[in-house]
């Protein structure tokens, strides 16, 4: 009988867990980058756009889950609604991974459409950013937050 009530009690736990998690994220400071390829989001964006920066645009369609079941596999899909002749490359970045870069894709007119999809690892709850560099040298981008959760069983 005690066991039953304990099990029912589990239901109340997630609420507590969330409270803890949200306060932790509030307190957490940006951890120092580590690893060979480490580069911060700001710097990566600078390198990609040659210091010009990117403008947010609704031409870039970024599709990511709002909540990722698993940080090790987060599906990302990008569509740039511009003729392929105008798009030079697509870059996928994350704001808090120690290496902010995820993938750089260099396109040619044979692609037909500026589209790219992959799966990335996210070290925690953060934003995913898609940058499209155009032929004229300017860059447009879109960003979306992804919540990374921790599962219960293995």
């Amino acid at each position, binding site marked *: 009988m005690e066991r039953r009530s304990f099990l029912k009690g589990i239901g109340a736990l997630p609420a507590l867990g969330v409270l803890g998690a949200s306060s932790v994220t509030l307190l957490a400071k940006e951890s120092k980058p*580590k*690893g*060979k*390829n480490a580069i911060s989001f700001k710097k990566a964006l600078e390198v990609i756009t040659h210091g010009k920066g990117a403008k947010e645009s609704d031409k870039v369609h970024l599709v990511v889950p709002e909540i990722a079941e698993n940080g*090790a*596999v*987060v599906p990302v899909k990008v569509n740039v609604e511009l003729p392929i002749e105008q798009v030079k490359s697509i870059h996928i970045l*994350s704001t808090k*991974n*120690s*290496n902010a*870069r*995820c*993938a*750089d*894709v*260099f*396109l*040619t*007119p*044979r*692609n*037909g*459409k*500026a*589209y*790219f*999809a*992959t*799966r*990335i*690892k996210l070290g925690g709850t953060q934003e995913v950013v898609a940058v499209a560099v155009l032929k004229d040298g300017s860059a447009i981008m879109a960003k979306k937050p992804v919540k990374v959760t921790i599962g219960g069983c293995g």
Partner: protein
Amino acid sequence: MAKRKSIIKIKPRKYKVGDIVKVDFIVIHPMETGMRKDKKTGKIKPMHYINEVKFYFNDELFTTIIPWETVSTNPYFSINMKVTGPGVIKVVYKDNLGEVNEKSKKVKPKG
């Protein structure tokens, strides 16, 4: 040199000349970040990831992807391609330890 397993899929399965198709490429690769510890030995597993994927159509390079170690294990890449006629898609991929592999798939448009 270890032979990697990989697969190329063209979607949809039936397509005509002039269609824009999806080309999906999946490869079995650990994509180690260089930050994880081996549970048995306690040593850090060295970084090991694919750092270049090139898509060729009839030996003409049409897309280059530069992935980083932040791409998931057993990576999946999907791009579009305009079908201009029959031919072969060839994907050449390299990793940071110098392994080079390739995979081909025939393109057979109907109609």
